[in-house]
């Protein structure tokens, strides 16, 4: 007994206690629902057995049916556009802004702070706001684009099948840009100025300094930003109901919204769970990338 107590105050037990408590909490509130979804994807579910675990086994029939839906490949394509478009846009613009704000000029950090405002806005508000901005006939984005002569005809951001997925992606880039910029700024701030000065003395130009110092030093930060970006993009839900509802004809539907539609519009909970389990595979990949990226961290 005494050994356990002293272990908790002073040894490994202390670490295990801190991690264990949190893990138990997370397992209960995130682990159990996850397992529940996996189990449900192999069962027949209806409103009468929704709250029990013992349901008729369905084998892979849910998976087969989901894959054989006519919209399946369209949704995969859209999910890829949404995820890679969002991450790409957030990362490239975020990185550019982070680099820009590393320059020394008055109020640089204050103005940079203002950008973070988007990140603290509730997703639902952002969705409503962008749904309004992107409206076809009275949307302000069209008015601006027409005003500066970029387009002649009204762009139906929410109703044109070739634009709809991009409309949501644009809103999501706006939402996530600040977060990317901030994390990348943090990484940039950690690079010693001495390195740049030494490189400058050696005659390296801006691009060379960026590719030989900034990028390698930022490797772990970039890995973390991209991995977290993938997870958060796949979780992004609030924008879809507020902007396009996945339409027209699924042309802006993505996996996470489709899963919700199965469960809450078509009331086929098993198929909804099936789609969400398929998404797990994607995130498994992202998590591996993230953990791999932390291997290059240096402490202290």
């Amino acid at each position, binding site marked *: 007994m005494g050994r356990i107590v002293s272990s908790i105050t002073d040894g490994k037990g202390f670490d295990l206690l801190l991690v264990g408590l949190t893990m138990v909490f997370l397992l209960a509130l995130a682990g159990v629902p996850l397992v529940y979804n996996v189990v449900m994807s192999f069962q027949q579910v209806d409103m009468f057995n929704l709250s029990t675990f013992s349901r008729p086994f369905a084998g892979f029939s849910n998976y087969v049916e989901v894959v054989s839906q006519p919209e399946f490949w369209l949704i995969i394509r859209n999910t890829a556009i949404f995820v890679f478009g969002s991450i790409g846009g957030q990362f490239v613009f975020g990185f550019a802004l982070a680099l820009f704000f590393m320059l020394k000029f008055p109020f640089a950090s204050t103005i940079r702070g203002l950008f973070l405002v988007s990140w603290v806005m509730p997703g639902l508000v952002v969705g409503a706001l962008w749904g309004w901005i992107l409206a076809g006939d009275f949307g302000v984005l069209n008015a601006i684009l027409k005003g500066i002569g970029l387009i002649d005809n009204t762009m139906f951001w929410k109703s044109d099948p070739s634009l709809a997925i991009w409309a949501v992606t644009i809103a999501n880039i706006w939402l996530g840009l600040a977060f990317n910029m901030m994390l990348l700024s943090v990484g940039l701030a950690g690079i010693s100025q001495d390195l740049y000065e030494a490189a400058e003395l050696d005659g390296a130009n801006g691009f060379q300094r960026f590719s030989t110092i900034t990028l390698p030093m930022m490797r772990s930060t970039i890995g973390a930003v991209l991995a977290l970006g993938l997870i958060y993009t796949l979780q992004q839900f609030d924008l879809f109901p507020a902007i396009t509802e996945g339409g027209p004809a699924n042309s802006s539907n993505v996996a996470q919204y489709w899963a919700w539609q199965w469960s809450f519009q078509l009331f086929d909970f098993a198929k909804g*769970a099936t789609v969400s389990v398929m998404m797990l595979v994607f995130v498994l990949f992202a998590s591996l990338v993230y953990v791999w990226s932390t291997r290059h961290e240096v402490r202290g």
Partner: protein
Amino acid sequence: MNRLPAPKLFLVLALGLAALYLFPLYWMYVTSLKGSSEIFANPPTFWPNDPDPSIYPETWARRTMATFLWNSLVIATGVTSLTVLLGTGCAYVLARYRSVWIDIGLFAILMLQVLPASVMITPLYVGFNQLGLLDYPRTAVILAAAGKAIPFYIVLVRATFMSVPRELEEAALVDGNSRWGAFFFIVLPLARNGILVLAILTFMQAFGEYIYSKSIITTQSLQPASVGLSGFLGPNSTDWNGIMAYAAIYVTPIVLVFVILQRRIVAGLTSGALK
């Protein structure tokens, strides 16, 4: 880099970028002040012809926003407390060691939050029901939302702990401090800034929590502002100035707090506290 010329030019450029980026916010305020027919004007007006601020008190009263915002506050405070309480220690341990087990732990934490809230809600609802937690709906939402917030918090606070020099902690242990002592009196104070900043960010995120509250809290007087807003966004919404006024009242406090604290937040995030 600090020898580059024309800082004023950069300032102008920065202001321009910020203005472009924050245009949606501007548009929210402008739309809220327009009359109901001006809203649908084509092309839109960039400044209301006849600004009408009376929409604010009207929306405030009609949509019982005081109650909604109070509930948001309760939920956000609960989520933040729980997250800081559970997340900080875990992040510290995960930052302290470097082993396969830590990798597995991190990996598990990430995997545990991969499913969007929209598919987590059914199992959570069923579970809470069996535990009788649905009778305390705000508590249930706090638990569920904390489950979503903690992994994110751990990942970022862990980075903060990475920047605390290990030597300081080891010196404290040599001086006869227990692990608890070293953690509370040496490591935590050094990581204070980062923790504070992430707590604020967690709070702001929780302030916008929507999906769990929508499904779990069935009594209107206990619902947060996000659910109140969704009541506006039904299929039959043309009350865009009302929606925008509601949204403005909802986000302005967060934005204000943020602008007031932003120097500290940004400093906390960038000046090595978070690395």
